[in-house]
């Protein structure tokens, strides 16, 4: 029993090490995103001004093609993501960005889910706390009654 338990601990421990190493290797050595990846990611954050609810990335409207080209140009010029998004917001209006801003009324879009997460976790914790198991005393009489009921059921149902 104890050797099985030891093996179990060893197995989980080993797995923990493997996972930690893999995640470290896979995360720390991460290369910078390539220019093409940056253009793609940025295009996904800008709304196509003339189409219904699509991002520039997924639209072939003339203006979208133009904005994609502009983004590619700015990436090539070495501008940072923030700089590019700010410039685009100035050119096409704040509503051209698909990400709600972190200030003003729009920031509620971020704050409310955060608040909801806190409430949800607190609620779950409260539910489990409220439902703590209560130890019930079981008398011998109740035990025999249960055993009898189970026996009867087996006879009835043929199990």
């Amino acid at each position: 029993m104890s050797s099985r338990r030891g093996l179990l601990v060893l197995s989980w421990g080993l797995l923990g090490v493997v996972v930690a190493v893999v995640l470290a290797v896979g995360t720390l050595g991460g290369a910078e995103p390539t220019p093409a990846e940056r253009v793609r990611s940025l295009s996904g954050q800008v709304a196509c001004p003339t189409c219904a609810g699509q991002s520039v990335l997924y639209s072939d409207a003339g203006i979208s093609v133009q904005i994609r080209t502009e983004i590619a140009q700015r990436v090539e010029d070495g501008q940072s993501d923030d700089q590019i998004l700010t410039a685009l917001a100035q050119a096409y209006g704040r509503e051209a960005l698909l990400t709600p801003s972190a200030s003003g009324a729009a920031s509620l879009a971020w704050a409310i889910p955060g608040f909801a997460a806190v409430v949800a976790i607190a609620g779950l914790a409260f539910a489990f706390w409220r439902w703590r198991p209560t130890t019930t005393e079981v008398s011998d009489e109740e035990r025999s009654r249960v055993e009898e009921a189970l026996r009867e059921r087996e006879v009835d149902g043929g199990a």
Partner: protein
Amino acid sequence: MNAIVGSAGVILGFAAAGFGAISLVVGLIWQRPALLRQSITYAGLVFAGSLASFVAMERALITRDFSIEYVAQVGSSLTPPLYNFASLWGALEGSILLWALVLAGYILLVAIKFRHRLTDPLVAWAMVTMFLVALFFFGLMVGPANPFTTWSPPVGYDGPGPDPLLQNHPLMVAHPPMLYLGYVGFTVPFAFAIAALITGRVGEGWLVETRRWTLFAWGFLTAGIILGAWWAYEVLGWGGYWGWDPVENSSLLPWLTGTAFLHSVMVQERRGMLRVWNLSLLCATFALTILGTFLTRSGVIESVHAFTTSSIGPALLGFFAVIVIASVGLIGWRGDRLRSPGSIDSPLSREGAFLANNVLFGGFAFVILLGTVFPLVVEAWNGDQLRVGEPFFERMSVPIGLALLTLMAIAPALPWRKTNVETLATRLQWPAWFGGACLLIALALGQRGLGTLAGYGLAGFAAGAAIRQVVLATRRQGWRGFVGRTNGGMIVHLGVILIAFGIIASNAGVESREFRLEIGESGVIEGHTITLVDVYQEDLPRKVRTVAAIQVDGGEIHEPAMNLFRASGRAVPTPSVRTTWTNDIALSIFPVESIDDPIGIRAVYQPLIAWLWAGGALMAIGTVLSAFPGRRRKPTDPTSAPLPERAPEGASS
């Protein structure tokens, strides 16, 4: 002729639903069983009415009866038969017609299924609820969304046909009906929930009776959503399958609450707990289908799916309000009876996991609803225009998705009531190593990034847990290890995991390139060579079709095309996708001035896209397997924890 038959059908359905509801309520209040038994007749009449109007509309479309405005709007003499048939649900009025037909079908099926129990108040109130819902939808067609209004078309009139995007792929025939079967199907459990609240029989009886109805509604909704994603992927030409468009979101919302319900219902059946929660989830699911219809059919949100602005918005919003108020009111009224007898012993138990699952699904639905309506609320409040798009939804859904995968990995190994860490560690040992192996393979294949790698690892872990469950069940029960709710559910989980792999891999590995090629030239994307072999133009009656023949890796030829519709001047692409089990290359071409110029080609490379569709198929199979009766406990079997061992003499317990 068509208009007369159609309108008569609508009026018949409207009247039958109205009289059915009234006579049932009268029969319930004055206790006249004879009146209650008539509900099957009324159900038959509602169905006959909706079928007549459906057939009349199809006949009008097929015979190109342009005297009906709707046909004039979506019909055309040039539309191929399949898409002509499907154009019935291509615009607002017709989609309500389809909704009514599906709803009437469900009502009739319920009446037939419960034909021996029509005098049971639970069934009768459920029928009343469904008749009222039908009354609303037929009412829409009598009033603001009448599909059979007529006009006098000029001589020789020919309609524009359905939106070009809707006549581009056969999936358009299957996707909307599937979705509607799912949406509308939730009316049945909702009606029984309302009936349970009204009759006060809020125990587990109604749940068990509507279990399969809910399951099938959920299965159809799942299939509808996945077919929609597939259609978008094949037709829209940007290599994407999910754009967090308001319409997509509004189909996902009831799916999320419905999924939460399918899980938490097991806690109620088994332990009698979470009654209020389950009723609320069902009511929310139904209300969200109506809210989604409002958002997408009223024109308040701009979306690639939105139909033209219509006057049915206020009606749908009002109906939504009625549903919410009625549900909340009834639940509040029955609050005393809804108190649960049981309690959760430990977070480390099946019911604890289901509860956490519900919080996650509920939270997921909440943030998606928030993101979808937030711009509306802000605009109504201070007039600011802002957008909440893909980046927001992705940032929200990644952590929730990872948390759900974690639960999927742990929960199947958890017993009811409680367990200890050692048991759990033993049961999860191999599934966890399976996840570890997936992680290692992903790393070896060059995948990087914390979220991506964690996703692969957790999805593998969850797959291991599901496979373990299926293996144990088949070892114990033979082929029956595949059927029944628990086992079928594990097959559904495996489908979800395939989809998770597809989503993670395609998001992490997507690569898109735009080329400008002359005939004979090649471009390279992710090590795959695409060569432009030929370009030609076809002059078709309605459009000019430019086709580029492109060879991928020196093998098969793909022919993406660009259709320029003469009437509207719209350019609609027809992409072509090279699919393999490991990766897809979606090819589309840009509009061309002249075919002698170099052709603009977009190639989008994404790994594991095929896993999405395979996962969807597996989910459908799993749903069907879940519906078969497995080796289940009798509903009357006792569910109690084993008694604590009798403490030895003298020892304290």
